């Protein structure tokens, strides 16, 4: 039984290919069903997001599993398997575990430290589990991977500092206003970035939104979208006094907000701070505005600088995460090797042998009147009992080892006979975690 993963991601494949190979829920189901029908494959979990499509599987012969997965995926996507193969990566055993852990910890993501991937893994696993496409190995692997992902998020600061321009802007605003509730944002001009920033501000609790645009119709349209109030462009100076946060992204070739206006507004609002975010190129806001008392101005370059510094910090945290992952991979490998049938049988037999010897020793002390020949008889009987008791489980275990879910027998046997105290405790821990 071998764990393996076949997949493509944003590093290995161009977006055109990723689009084609991307799987929706229905395709995931049919693909899994198809793969499980093949002899070597016993467990399957497909994982598909906008940056990756991966198939995690358990197969008795990994090479056969890889071929099957590649062929099925290519067929589902309607592309040539060779084209897919050129971009696909394949990991088996420990390195497959390592790969999933890294994905779960978002170290393999386009934006290192992003939070969505963990939810996507959970979803993919829950669906596979509901289809009963998983068994002991993938169940344990995915539950662990989700735990690892959570642990990396709590034990490192990988997701703490934002790296996208719009969330950096909101993060900075919150250093001026701890709670955005009760505050007002003024949006000037339209554009993807400023709208994204506005969305972030609203998500962080900003209470009211004023929208202004050179064309009133556009302002009305945007105001409707953000549940805000359109204000006339000509009276900007007046509304500036109401705004705690100003987001600018007009296409104007000159400054839209000048220092003098801000000074006037600042007097009218009794020096309550204003945070200016200037996303426009060329800039909308006179850089001198930053010199106005209690006015803070960040243009696109400033925001990018902060984002870059934050990204560098994430890299540092990623190295800590790597350490955590390596430990967890080792832990998982230890568990997997405990599930091998042969060592388990050896261990079971050793335990039986020890019990037999112990009991014989006791008997020998109590029955001191026995002759050597009688004693040999007793010993032979003890051996016979042990061998007969051990025979059936040994044979069954060897047989089960190659079957789907065969690990279940090994695991049950280990639990029933208390063969590995450590792994049992661990199992209890997992259970109580839910």
């Amino acid at each position, binding site marked *: 039984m071998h764990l393996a993963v076949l997949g493509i991601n944003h590093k290995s494949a161009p977006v055109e290919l990723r689009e084609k190979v991307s799987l929706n829920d229905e395709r995931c189901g049919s693909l899994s069903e198809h793969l499980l029908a093949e002899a070597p494959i016993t467990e399957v979990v497909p994982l598909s997001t906008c940056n990756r499509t991966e198939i995690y599987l358990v197969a008795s012969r990994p090479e056969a599993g890889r071929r099957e997965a590649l062929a099925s995926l290519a067929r589902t996507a309607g592309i040539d398997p060779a084209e897919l193969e050129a971009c696909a990566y394949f990991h088996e055993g420990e390195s497959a575990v390592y790969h999933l852990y890294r994905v779960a910890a978002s170290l393999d993501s386009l934006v290192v430290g992003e939070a969505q991937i963990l939810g996507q893994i959970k979803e993919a696993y829950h669906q596979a589990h509901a289809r009963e496409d998983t068994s002991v190995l993938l169940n344990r692997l995915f539950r662990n991977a989700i735990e690892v992902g959570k642990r990396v998020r709590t034990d490192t*600061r990988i997701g*703490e*500092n934002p790296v996208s321009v719009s969330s950096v802007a909101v*993060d*900075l605003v*919150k*250093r*001026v*206003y*701890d709670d955005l509730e009760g505050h007002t944002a003024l949006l000037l001009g339209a554009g993807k970035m400023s709208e994204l920033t506005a969305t972030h501000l609203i998500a962080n609790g900003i209470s009211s939104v004023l929208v202004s645009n050179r064309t009133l119709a556009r302002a009305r349209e945007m105001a409707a979208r953000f549940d805000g109030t359109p204000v006339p462009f000509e009276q900007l100076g007046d509304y500036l006094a109401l705004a705690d946060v100003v987001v600018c992204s007009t296409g104007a070739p000159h400054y839209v907000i000048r220092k003098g206006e801000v000074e006037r507004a600042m*007097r009218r609002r*009794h*020096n*309550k*701070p204003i945070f200016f975010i200037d996303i426009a190129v060329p800039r909308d806001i006179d850089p001198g505005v*930053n010199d106005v*008392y*209690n006015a*803070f101005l*960040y243009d696109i370059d*400033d925001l990018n*600088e*902060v984002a870059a*510094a*934050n990204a560098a*910090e994430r890299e540092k945290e990623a190295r800590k995460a790597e350490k955590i992952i390596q430990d967890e991979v080792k832990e998982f490998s230890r568990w997997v090797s405990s599930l091998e049938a042969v060592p388990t049988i050896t261990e079971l037999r050793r335990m039986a042998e020890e019990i037999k010897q112990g009991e014989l020793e006791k008997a020998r002390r109590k029955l001191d009147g026995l002759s050597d020949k009688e004693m040999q008889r007793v010993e032979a009987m003890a051996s016979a009992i042990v061998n007969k008791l051990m025979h059936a489980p040994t044979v069954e275990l060897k047989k089960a080892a190659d079957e789907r879910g065969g690990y279940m027998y090994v695991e049950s046997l280990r639990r029933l006979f208390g063969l590995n105290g450590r792994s049992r405790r661990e199992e209890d821990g997992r259970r109580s975690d839910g």
Partner: protein
Amino acid sequence: MEALVRTEEILFIAAVISYLVCSGLFIWYLISRNQAAGRLGMVLLVMGWLAHTAALALRWQTSGHAPMANLYASLSLFGWGIVLFFLITDRFYPVKVAGAMVVPVAFIITSVAGVFYEGPQELMPALQSYWLWIHVTIAMLSYGLFALAFGAGFIYIIQEYLLKKQYQNVILGFVFLFVALGLVIGLWLGSWWAEPARVADELGRVDKIYAGEDILKMVIGSIIGLAVGLILGYAAGKGAARPSFSKRLPSLDVLDEVSYRAVAFGFPMLTIGIITGSIWADQAWGSWWSWDPKETWSLITWLYYGAYLHTRLTMGWRGRHSALLAVIGLVVVLFTYLGVNLLLPGLHSYTPT
């Protein structure tokens, strides 16, 4: 009696040690954002403060009057107040990291109290009055609030500086700040080390005579302070240049409000302190106000914080200017409190003249 005095000493030392450890923990919390350090610091601070409370209560018990008769007791009360107000503020505002600023201040003041340690003593007759303990206690608590305003104001200035500069070219500012602090502290420690000859003139005023050797020691102290300031300033500037650092500091509006509230509560307390003091002065000396240096400087402090509130309420000051006033305010408070006592002779000196 002896045993109680011993216990008080031990509790006091425990409080000082816990403030020292907490200073370390809070600074570590600020640098590393290690949540456990912050929580541990808070727990330890509460425990240290309780020990401190017990020490003050014991001092009250053994001396038979409120802890205020000497510099030790009143400084101890000052430090106690700072910690109390920080703990209260922490309940209402997300300012735990400000502990990295406020707790060291409390530690320094409390340990200076330890330097002036004196056992419980009888009050001189002039000091035996009901008004006196109200006067001293309220004055000390108002000082505690001004120290809190200082801490919040100081962090405000740093946070605002970082935000205004967009985290670029900030190292120089930190180097300046730390070098200035290093020089002052180095000079101060150097003057302790120097031990100048003390000469009293005919009026009983003590003058210090600095020999060449003493001046050399003070220069060495300053140079060491400067060097340490340079290194620490560079390291701090390097650290603060990362935008993620200022995310750990409280936001500007919280800092501004904490600083303002502290003064808003401290000012009326100072007013009551001055009024009760003057009632007591009338009883003790038969005069409400005698322009003794302490009284004069108390009035200056009162006017100073009055000006802080005035600029805020009627002129719309807030932010950096107010924060700067709150920071300088503590210097005025410390001069009124210690400088007057130690440098200028008068009715309020704790050491009998």
